[in-house]
């Protein structure tokens, strides 16, 4: 009889402890989730997608994979060097972003990556001359179609090659957004067109602040 009372008390105490714990946990969880997620357009939070291992080749001919994304903030744009309108304009905007972040001493840990969706024409040499024309600190990413897809598919990049003209030219329709990957190699934000340098800088700094506070 005494045992049954003791067991009952123990069960009640356990339930109380569990309930309080669960309550505290859920209130904390919902609290941080609701209150801490800032209103930043393009922020993919909570549950940002973890980038899986991939292999591409940079414009200097070196292997470029997950290891090269680790520990840095990466702004990634997919395009091709024969693209006359969207790509040079986007690279100019990213160049301004780079300059503005440098003025604020915030560019140290950032890499800007131009990944080619046109492996046939964008050889290592072609990518190198193109990317260095815009900014010597930028990284051109190429390799085979499969190598570029091994990164691009993870972020839902699409591209379609147009028909070749009689003189052999073709256009490539492609995703025109800029992707942000954090130092833990998580895809944390998407900047959609129209792209504007000040706007990207402000959102980037806000996202960086927020994520640094989470780690």
């Amino acid at each position, binding site marked *: 009889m005494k045992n049954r009372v003791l067991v009952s008390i123990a069960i009640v105490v356990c339930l109380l402890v569990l309930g309080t714990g669960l309550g505290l946990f859920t209130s904390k969880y919902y609290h941080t989730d609701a209150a801490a997620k800032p209103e930043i357009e393009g922020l993919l939070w909570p549950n940002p997608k973890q980038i899986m291992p991939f292999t591409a080749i940079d414009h200097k001919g070196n292997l470029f994979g997950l290891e090269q994304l680790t520990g840095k903030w990466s702004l990634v744009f997919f395009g091709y*060097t*024969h*693209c*006359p*309108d*969207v790509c*040079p*304009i986007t690279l*100019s*905007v990213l*160049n*301004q972003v780079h300059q503005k972040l440098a003025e604020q001493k915030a560019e140290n840990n950032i890499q800007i990556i131009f990944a080619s969706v046109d492996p046939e024409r964008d050889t290592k*040499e*072609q990518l190198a*001359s*193109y990317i*260095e*024309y815009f900014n010597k600190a930028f990284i051109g990413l190429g390799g085979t179609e499969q190598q570029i897809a091994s990164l691009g598919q993870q972020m839902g990049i*699409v*591209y379609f090659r*147009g028909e070749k003209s009689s*003189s052999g*030219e073709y*256009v490539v*329709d*492609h*995703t*025109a*957004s800029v992707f942000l990957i954090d130092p833990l190699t998580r895809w944390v934000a998407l900047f*959609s*067109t*129209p792209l504007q340098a000040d706007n990207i800088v402000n959102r980037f700094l806000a996202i960086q602040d927020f994520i640094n506070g989470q780690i």
Partner: protein
Amino acid sequence: MQLKISLLLLSLLSVSSVIADNAILISNAWINAAPPTVQVVAAYMNIRNNSDEQIDLISARSPLFERIEFHFTRIENGVAKMQKQDNIPIAARSEFSFSPGEFHLMLFNNRKPLKAGDMVPLQFTFSDGQTVTINAEVKSANIATEHHH
């Protein structure tokens, strides 16, 4: 005296006919500078139609390029798609803009290397039969986009 007046009238007439010929005015033409390995570049400009009729831009050429096409960049679900335009209608008494990320001229295969500061002659033919030749400056988009703000 009468001769002087008629001469004056004649000169006024000729001035007005020059103005009438300028039904089309092209301004702010520039070509986006690109590294020498790039064979396709974009050009942008404004075209003003001062006439009371719609006039279509039907073709463009340049001695420095193999050919020129008109294109429009449409963004659909985040994907940039290039759409070739056969001609560009310019409504009466209005201005049409070729600008980055929208309508642009696509210049194929330059016959000599171009660098920022170069002037490139571009010749445009319109549906009313007139031909307009202008010089477009090769500029770096870095500077051009900053000027837009």
